């Protein structure tokens, strides 16, 4: 038995096919989900991939958040469905308030594309058990609205509860507060991050490293062992 991981396509999503590939490389089954369908096809987990859904118009993620598929994702995430939001997917998750905070334009005001070093701070979420806490990984990062912000109380809470899941190392590429690259919800099933693990699952392609594969093997193990 293998796990079925849904990958949502919104209009303007770009990394859906890459994410499906990453799911397959990890050994799970990738199930395409369409923004207009409420039906999640009984998947065991959902990834909201990167891209520019609705052109990032208004605010990144603001329009997608209201799609039919998100109604189901929001409802089931609250019941424990594992959900991973990558880049634009992370932006959608903050817009839905499944994750706290918000994303603003990069401090440099430019789009930035680079190989980014991260520290995995929380290796207990549904998507990070194949890493060890404190592990350093390098994956591609590419965004223009990637500056994570939240008020001080929220940030303190995230820190205190160990919910800062990933932190930028060496360079903070977008001015995110407290170098936050990704966070998790309290239950650990909903995780969002700006960098792109799905672009780092095959040697030779992209950065030539496979540091991102752990996200997809983590969820597979969790689901298969469940």
């Amino acid at each position, binding site marked *: 038995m293998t796990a079925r991981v849904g990958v949502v396509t919104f209009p303007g999503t770009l990394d859906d096919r890459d994410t499906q590939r990453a799911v397959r490389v990890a050994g799970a089954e990738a199930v395409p989900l369409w923004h207009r369908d409420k039906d999640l096809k009984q998947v065991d987990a959902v990834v909201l991939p990167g891209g520019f859904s609705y052109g990032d118009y208004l605010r990144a993620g603001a329009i997608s958040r209201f799609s039919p598929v998100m109604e189901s994702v929001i409802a089931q995430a609250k019941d424990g469905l594992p959900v991973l939001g990558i880049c634009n997917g992370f932006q959608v998750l903050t817009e839905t308030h499944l994750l706290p905070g918000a994303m603003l334009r990069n401090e440099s005001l430019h*789009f930035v594309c680079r190989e980014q070093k991260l520290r995995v701070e929380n290796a207990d979420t549904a998507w990070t058990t194949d890493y060890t806490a404190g592990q350093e990984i390098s994956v591609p990062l*590419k965004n223009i609205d990637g500056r994570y912000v939240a008020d001080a109380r929220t940030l303190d809470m995230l820190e205190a509860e160990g919910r800062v899941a990933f932190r930028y190392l060496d360079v903070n590429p977008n001015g995110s507060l407290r170098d936050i690259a990704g966070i998790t919800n309290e239950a650990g099933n909903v995780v969002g991050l700006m960098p792109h693990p799905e672009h780092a699952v095959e040697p030779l392609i992209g950065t030539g490293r496979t540091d991102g594969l752990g996200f997809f093997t983590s969820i597979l193990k969790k689901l298969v062992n469940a």
Partner: protein
Amino acid sequence: MTLDTVKHAAETPEAEQPWAELGLKQDEYARIREILDRRPTGAELAMYSVMWSEHCSYKSSKVHLKQFGEKVPENDAMLVGIGENAGVVDVGQGYAVTFKVESHNHPSYIEPYQGAATGVGGIVRDILAMGARPVAVVDPLRFGAADHPDTKRVLPGVVAGIGGYGNCLGLPNIGGEVVFDACYQGNPLVNAGCIGVMKHEDIHLAKASGAGNKVILYGARTGGDGIGGVSVLASETFDATKPTKRPAVQVGDPFQEKLLIECTLEVFKEQLVAGIQDLGGAGLSCATSELASAGSGGMRVELDTVPLRDSSLSPEEILMSESQERMCAIVEPDKVDRFLEICEKWDVIATVIGEVTDGTRLEIFWHGEQIVDVPPRSVAHEGPTYHRPYARPDWQDALQADDANQLARPTTPEELRAQILQVVASPNQASKAWITDQYDRFVQGNTVLAQPEDSGMVRIDEETNLGVALATDGNGRFAKLDPYAGAQLALAEAYRNVAATGAKPLAVSDCLNFGSPEDPAVMWQFAEATRGLADACQTLGTPVTGGNVSLYNQTGEVAIHPTPVVAVLGVIDDVNRRTPVAFAQEGQLIYLLGDTAEELGGSAWSQVVHEHLGGLPPKVDLERERLLAEILISASRDGMADAAHDLSDGGLIQALVESCLRGGNGARLVVPEGVDPFVFLFSESAGRAVVSVPRSEELRFTDMCGARGLPATRIGVVDGDAIDVQGQFSIALDELRTAHEATIPGLIG
């Protein structure tokens, strides 16, 4: 205002018409009247004027471009040649690849962000219209002097526009060029290229056949964008005094284009399309007349069915509008419903605006009244042809006599070292990361190599690891010294760059950027460059599959350097065998391949150290280029070289600096006996590359070079954290890195 119908035109032969304002010449207007046997209607005049503009009709250039077809080399790979939206080549395993480079120069000067953005949008639709999924873009750019205030306006806007549009489409940017030169001050060059991939059976052509088939316009609504833009912006030099009531600037909507791509690929997949054409310059005028002209019948269009953004547009304006993100498809009647359904799925507006007829005319109606009745070929394919006079300029001899080899050279190792740092830090030779880091190079998950590699490379089959590579090059300084040789050097460099990564060069696209064709000196440059490129393509066996011409790149009397930009596409059977530029392994041996002569004309050194342009460009030896490419490809395939970097502007030292910095390793070098260190490091002789060879492969590698007659000189070893030239100087990598990387952010950031 009364509608100028065909009937009305026939009845009012003497009515005054604004043909001159629309950019037509008197004899052209007379010819239109002759073709129609009456005066044209306003709508017809609009169509002819825009389709007969330089930009759309290639009227000054086509007598020269003909050579690309006449001198086409034997090449089994060519599936679709010049004349379609883009050429198509066979890359094996049933795959076909289409690619093309286009210019969006004038619009990008007026409005850098939108001009560049819509340039990307336009070339992507060209590729899409061939039936292919776009998989990567490249962007060869030229700006004015790096420290000129206007460059600070134009460059960031252009880069943000290319990134803003391409990133949002999900197309990895895998290469390009950034060149600064005062000659481009008022005429920056924004060229954009795109690669698309399809299976052989999916190739689509722009033609409308089959009476009764429907004409479907889909994508964005039509607004007043760029009306007159084609003729005003692309075909004449600017006339700032002319008032425009409609925006001459098109605004791009990359989100709409992304939907258009996905929607189009889906209708292709379900085989719902009999013919297709993108809407670019000249909008509907171009799409309808070209589709009808290439097809077998006529076409009838109800123009009032076109969805509008601005309801005040006149029929003439609708025909000329250059609103972006639109496509036009020919669809069999029983497939229309499914076609519209797929458009709805992707939130794309689609409208049946007409049908293919069994007649011979393109007929356009406005609320039931006929406003266009023309033979489509006369609009689309039988425009005027000029044999413009050309003459070698009288200054050419003096320019060539001003020999760069006579310039003062460094006299001490310290001076040589200082000049190396100066060249490596100069805007043209410095790292372009500040620019290229604003482009997504990872999206689609198939990028094997991207900037700053010698060529971009993407995997096109995940099972077999088949890949394609693309490099673009052009050196306006060389072309100014000798346009014939300059064009060949551009080709040679791109060809070499592709081979350096291990891919086999297959085919060529080009973007020819020149000044005014009405200047005989410019026309001579153009004639020489096209002749040079066509000859070289024939020798190298790489056909020109398509391209673009941009003329009138000049301010007043002063033209830009002749700037032929050449893109070479290559194929590699297994991307695992690709060769990067980085010296990643300490201890490997560095070999210089090829011969170094004393060739400093047009060189980076002469520009940076002496602000000099004169003499002759490096000699072209195409047989040598071919041999070098074969060696580089074999070395990659058989694992004999772990790194390779072609030598071009900046010479050997530039290549070494780049390979060392990329790999994070230094190099210890020895100048071969009897060679002048300065010439060794700075000469820009063509047909050369450096490679790093594992010690275990040395013998096999040198045997191969020896057996095939390619000079291979062992010049050093990858080692340490400095570039150390024995008996000369040493420069720490840190110092080189700072020099190389700080320049562009310092000037522009």
